[in-house]
């Protein structure tokens, strides 16, 4: 447990992808079974031990500490798990402190709800500060260390010479603590026997299309599909009543969308599609889906208000037959045939567009409703162009699939605050809060930390340092007066109402499109411009 706790601790501080991979791979390489397998399962989210409620943790610490000292400590630290990890009174002897991760996992899995508090307390007694912090993160299900299932699998492959996609292909046949996986990666066995089960298939991804690329394409070679403003996902059912919903990166989302996982356990297929929220036949704005995504396990009321929906656009296997080598034209026919057999209200087939020519394709992107999207038009965020002859290949192969997103929204906003970045950017002011005018004053409307080159970053950094009007820890207030300040052209994908921000607005994926050194803050946009861009809700 000590080594795994140290790994989680290091990962929580490490930003770089390569550094994270090395930390995980080194851990897996040097840790014996079954501990490393349980560790991998915790990182990939395949081992859910997160049943402990904050109330239980609070009760345990209350039994052990002076209430005033606890209150002062919690107030200072600000996070319950961390406070408890630091404050937990350590027994004077830690003779049996070598609690292994395997012990922890097996104890927690065997323990019923009634005995859980005692087992948690005993584990906390036997761990040090970092160990307790990691343990509490695991049992409260709040890991938040910036490691995706995909990244963890990539790291596991690195201890041999297996690619993440190879691991994905066999992952469904495995269970923690994955002894056979490590045997295979480390070359002790040649292959893993896979049975047809609820397996995630690594998805095929598209390249962005620029307007000038379009002319070089022959529209007759392409299926032109809608690009939905939802979340890419894969639903896999085993024909025996089991199904799972996976994210694009292979995270199992079934618990967050039980309405989909249960509603679509029909048939025996693996489908590629989009998760949306559809109520009374209408696709709700992305903000509604965001509310579902924010909840690890949704309540009945939330699911009734915001029902999950799966819109399918590809089929990867059917009745145990792998269809991925077939051309899209053949897969589409099989998908349409399959879709006719599914009557679930949480399922639909993603229609093809009516666009057939270059001009129609360009027009459909601007006006989806006129090219077959109808009332779903506002939920379209662009087009997908997929070669009819393309097999389904994992990764992002060139020249087969294209995505052509609608133009982002843009506003001119004024830099108001700048914060130092992290990692390589820790000496640069690289995170920017910007605002627009409301009743003669600037009001912050968003934050962005991308969209500029290193040279531009260096120039903005110099500007921030030379125009600082106030400092708050790592944040600097930057001069923002009508005649003096810096204007950004900010691009974003959508706009929602939000009670969290002073402006009442929240942008989706804002980034700096251009730096307008030529403009004065007084030329920036007003809040009314943004309010006209609000998603219909």
């Amino acid at each position, binding site marked *: 447990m000590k080594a795994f706790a140290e790994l989680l601790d290091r990962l929580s501080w490490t930003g770089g992808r390569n550094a994270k991979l090395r930390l995980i791979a080194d851990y897996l390489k040097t840790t014996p079974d079954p501990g490393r397998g349980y560790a991998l399962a915790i990182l990939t989210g395949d081992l859910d031990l997160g049943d402990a409620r904050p109330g239980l943790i609070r009760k345990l610490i209350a039994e052990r500490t002076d209430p005033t000292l606890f209150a002062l400590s919690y107030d200072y630290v600000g996070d319950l798990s*961390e406070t408890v990890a630091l404050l937990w009174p350590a027994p004077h002897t830690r003779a049996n402190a070598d609690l292994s991760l395997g012990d922890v996992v097996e104890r927690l899995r065997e323990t019923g709800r009634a005995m859980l508090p005692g087992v948690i307390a005993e584990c906390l007694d036997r761990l040090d500060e970092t160990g307790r912090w990691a343990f509490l993160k695991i049992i409260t299900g709040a890991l938040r260390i910036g490691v995706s299932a995909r990244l963890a699998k990539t790291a596991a492959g690195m201890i041999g010479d297996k690619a993440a996609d190879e691991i994905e292909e066999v992952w469904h046949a495995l269970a923690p603590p994955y002894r056979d996986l490590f045997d295979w990666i480390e070359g002790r066995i040649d292959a893993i026997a896979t049975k047809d089960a609820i397996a995630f298939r690594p998805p095929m991804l598209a390249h962005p299309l620029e307007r000038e690329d379009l002319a070089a394409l022959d529209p007759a070679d392409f299926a032109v599909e809608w690009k939905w403003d939802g979340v890419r996902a894969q639903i896999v059912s085993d024909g025996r009543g089991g199904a799972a919903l996976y994210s694009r990166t292979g995270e199992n989302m079934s618990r967050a969308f039980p309405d989909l996982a249960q509603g679509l356990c029909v048939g025996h297929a693996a489908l590629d599609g989009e998760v949306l929220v559809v109520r009374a036949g209408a696709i709700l704005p992305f903000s509604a889906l965001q509310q579902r995504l924010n909840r690890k396990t949704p309540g009945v009321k939330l699911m009734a208000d915001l029902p999950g929906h799966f819109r399918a656009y590809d089929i990867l296997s059917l009745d145990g037959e792998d269809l991925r080598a077939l051309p899209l034209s053949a897969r589409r026919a099989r998908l349409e045939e399959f879709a006719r057999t599914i009557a679930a209200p949480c399922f639909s087939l993603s229609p093809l567009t009516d666009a057939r020519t270059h001009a129609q394709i360009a027009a459909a992107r601007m006006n989806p409703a006129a090219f077959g999207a109808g009332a779903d038009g506002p939920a379209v965020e662009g087009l997908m162009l997929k070669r009819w002859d393309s097999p389904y290949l994992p990764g992002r192969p060139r020249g087969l699939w294209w995505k052509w997103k609608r133009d982002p929204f843009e506003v001119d906003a004024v830099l108001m605050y700048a914060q130092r970045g992290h990692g390589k950017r820790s000496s640069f002011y690289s995170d920017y809060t910007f605002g627009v005018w409301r009743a003669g004053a600037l009001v912050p409307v968003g934050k962005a930390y991308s969209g500029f080159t290193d040279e531009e970053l260096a120039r903005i950094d110099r500007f921030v340092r030379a125009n600082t009007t106030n400092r708050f820890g790592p944040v600097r207030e930057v001069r923002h007066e009508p005649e003096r300040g810096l204007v950004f052209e900010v691009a974003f994908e959508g706009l929602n109402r939000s009670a969290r921000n002073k402006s009442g607005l929240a942008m989706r994926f804002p980034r700096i499109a251009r730096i307008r050194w030529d403009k004065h803050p007084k030329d920036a946009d007003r809040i009314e411009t943004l309010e006209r861009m609000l998603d219909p809700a």
Partner: protein
Amino acid sequence: MFRRPRERAAPRATNSDMNADASAQILTLTEAGLYCPAGGFHIDPLRPVDRAVVTHGHADHARPGHRAVLATGETLDIMVARYGETCFGTGQALAYGAPLKVGDTTVTLHPAGHILGSAQVAIAYRGARAVVSGDYKTRPDPTCAAYEPVACDVFVSEATFGLPVFRHPPPQQEIGKLLRSLAQFPERTHLVGAYPLGKAQRVIRLLRDAGYDAPIFLHGAMGTLTQLYERHGVALGDLRPLEAADKSVAARGGVVVCPPSATTDRWSRRFVDPVVAFASGWMRVRARARQRGVELPLVISDHVDWTELTAAVEATGCRQLWVTHGQEDALVHWAQQARGLAARPLRLLGYAEDGEPEGAA
């Protein structure tokens, strides 16, 4: 100047509650900080005074401009190194344990274990004794004399880490984290933020004791005080100023010790993808470490943690506990509730939260 104190009126006391007590003649609180009426001197005064006893060389305790300063020889050296020869009128060195008559009192200095030369000030007067501990730590530190508990009636303590969430791990364990990271990321320079007085030398010494004998590169602000430590017999191994070194050597891994602020300063841009470490007791709290943009927090402190703090208070056998600065509420609560001591917070605002403006903790 300390040998022949002149007769002078005691400064106005701001706390009348202590006046009834006999110990008020030993110690009272004035606008310039702690004052000993019976001896006619201040301790770590916050503004220039005639006569100051200085516990240690950190900037918030050792301020320039006093007419006469009494301190350990090391502390006087540090003050001169930082502020120049004219930073006080006269300096008088007092060895640990040697008694000195000052006014009607007898003053002795005792090792505080905080940094080189750090001392607790014990003041004896008519059978009563007060100890002003300054900043202190009780665990061993090879770069300074070991803390010595001193029995007293009134104990004046800091409470920088005066919350039970602060329990510092063994520093060797933290150095182990640094060494493992160096092995794991040998191509990345490890930029270790450490306060230039005390922490930097301790981190270097800990690295040497753990068997790290490669050259350690120093930021320009580190040189003077590090040399001073070496002159006082603290061996620190192969140290090289970064400026004079071949930058490509430093950019290919290894350890660079710099002031904490330098890790987020433009100075740090010369390193390609460094691992930024920070050695401080504050690294125990994640939000504090995150604010610093640290990738490798090292919980190494030159102050007592909660367990050591409460044990140190108990070991003095004091009846009264005065808390100068830090997280005083929790310590005062503990002293009153758990130990039945007369405890009060002084809330001396002049002492920086971090012991120094730049994270000496």
